[in-house]
């Protein structure tokens, strides 16, 4: 047994889940449950930040590693959790009688994600992956409009189960070749084609979470049908965890192998292109964001296929800054869809007149996604593209840049609707204090990390060193 204090950040989030469970079982009001959850989530973020420098192995040797890499991603995950909980003070899209359980599943899922990025053994990794997924499956089903919620959850579960099966099969192949499930021992074995196929199959489970092209089909429907607050969490924290696992598998498990790189290059290009082109024709804002997630996953893969220390660092950086950016976009969706409906391009019209704060949040979110300075989205893309250029992937950067330009069209069109189109209904939108604070926090994070990227970039570089 190692040093159990290294597990404190996860333990705090787990405690948050238990608190939410107890409050749900004793039948307290949602308000009380929410306040307790916000406090526990703040504690989770604080502990993750305090444990940033920690390194070591809390459990049996080789299965669970706490290092600069896992700790930085845990900060990203807990931030996503905290922000998602903070705006769920009155989750209008969540079914009335299920509301009380909402925070519990968020916390359980977050624990799974935090364990995912630390796991250095395939079975541990798989169990953590499932732990994080189950909470999300249930969250997706809690929509007020039951039919759509069930559809969203059913699609999510079916796709998730299928990719889990593929992952398990891939793990069995890896185990067959390497005769070990410890990543540290797998890296010592010679990568044979069988091993490479195993790794590709094993990756599919996480590529599914990240909604990379051939595994993306669930994303638009699940985003559309799941409650807004749940999608906020799915769209932020789970992406960080997925990037973490992919990076670990790629760099801890096997040295760069040509066929693996080629396969990932194809996924990367396809993801960017399909995501951006499909997003253009969507009318539902949540569907736009879903397809934009697919495209963003492609950008993140650029960093990972660069197969360099800088590439990993840029992917980690992008994954972490992506949390507040997407959060800004989803916050607006949550407020506009407080009655349970999905905001469309027309319901967003004239948002500036109805609520300047929301319009500003949307602006920051969309600029961040499009990668316009001074938001952190720009710095993120900058790092990704320069890492790719350093690895002689100029053509990939060109495709990425073309895609970023295409994406400008639909991101800016939303902004245009919000700022320039006159509203159909001029009543001001009421924003609760907690949501206003969350909006301020989200915008601050996006802008600060865009103007002063150095601190986070240094952490990301240290993280990349920790797994290389």
């Amino acid at each position, binding site marked *: 047994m190692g040093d159990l204090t290294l597990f404190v950040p996860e333990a705090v989030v787990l405690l948050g889940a238990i608190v939410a*469970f107890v409050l*749900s*079982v*004793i*039948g307290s009001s949602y308000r009380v449950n929410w306040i307790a959850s916000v406090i526990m989530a703040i504690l989770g973020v604080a502990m993750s930040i305090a444990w940033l420098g920690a390194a070591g192995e809390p459990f049996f040797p080789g299965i669970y590693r706490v290092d600069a890499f896992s700790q930085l991603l845990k900060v990203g995950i807990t931030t996503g959790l905290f922000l998602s909980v903070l705006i769920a003070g009155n989750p209008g899209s969540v079914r009335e009688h299920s509301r009380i359980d909402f925070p519990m599943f968020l916390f359980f899922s977050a624990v799974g994600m935090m364990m995912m990025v630390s796991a250095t053994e395939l079975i541990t990794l798989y169990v953590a992956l499932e732990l994080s997924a189950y909470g999300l499956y249930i969250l997706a089903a809690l929509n007020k409009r039951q039919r759509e919620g069930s559809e969203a959850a059913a699609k999510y579960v079916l796709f998730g189960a299928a990719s889990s099966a593929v992952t398990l099969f891939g793990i069995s*192949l890896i185990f067959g*070749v390497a005769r070990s499930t410890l990543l540290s021992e797998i890296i010592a074995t010679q990568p*044979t*084609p*069988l091993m490479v*196929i195993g790794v590709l199959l094993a990756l599919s489970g996480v590529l599914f979470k990240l909604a990379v092209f051939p595994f993306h089909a669930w994303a638009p429907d699940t985003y559309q049908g799941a409650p807004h607050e749940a999608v906020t969490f799915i769209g932020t924290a789970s992406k960080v965890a997925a990037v973490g696992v992919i990076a670990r598998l790629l760099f801890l498990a096997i040295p760069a192998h040509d066929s693996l790189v080629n396969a990932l290059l194809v996924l990367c290009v396809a993801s960017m292109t399909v995501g951006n082109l499909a997003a253009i024709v969507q009318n539902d804002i949540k569907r736009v964001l879903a397809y934009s997630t697919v495209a963003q996953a492609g950008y993140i893969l650029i960093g990972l296929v660069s197969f360099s220390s800088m590439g990993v660092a840029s992917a980690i950086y992008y994954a972490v800054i992506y949390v507040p950016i997407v959060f800004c976009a989803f916050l607006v969706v949550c407020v506009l869809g407080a009655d349970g409906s999905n905001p469309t391009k027309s319901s967003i019209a004239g948002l500036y007149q109805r609520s300047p704060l929301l319009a500003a949040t949307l602006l920051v979110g969309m600029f961040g996604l499009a990668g316009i300075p001074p938001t952190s989205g720009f710095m993120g893309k900058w790092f990704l593209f320069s890492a790719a250029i350093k690895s002689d992937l100029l053509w990939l950067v060109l495709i990425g840049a073309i895609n970023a330009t295409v994406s400008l069209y639909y991101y800016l069109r939303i902004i245009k609707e919000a700022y320039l189109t006159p509203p159909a209904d001029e009543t001001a939108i009421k924003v609760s204090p907690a949501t206003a604070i969350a909006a301020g926090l989200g915008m601050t994070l996006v802008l600060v990390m865009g103007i002063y990227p150095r601190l986070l970039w240094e952490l990301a570089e240290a993280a990349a060193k920790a797994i290389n």
Partner: protein
Amino acid sequence: MTDYGQLIAYLGIGFALGIAALVVPSLIAPRYKGAETEKTYECGVDTVGSAWIRFGISFYLFALIFVAFEVDILYLFPVALVFNEEMFGWRAFVEVFIFLLILSLAIVYAWRKGVIRWTR
């Protein structure tokens, strides 16, 4: 090319097993046709009555809780095996107790949410 030997062997064995699973039974399985073959499904107990009867949907939740427990009982067997050994006795007892305590939270949850209450 030799690297791919593993892969080809693996694929070959996979296909061979798949084909064998179809061919071998068709060669050695007894051909028999009778009342048993016509049955909707075989479970060792003779099927009675029509399938179109009404039953309480509440059973579905009971079944779920049952599954949650049934699978977990498997984990008690390893403990039962080492229970008699010197170094495990009390420690195993306490650990299993904690394990069951965590499991029973599921029942507590179901109970408090009114799953066990029989409503029609």
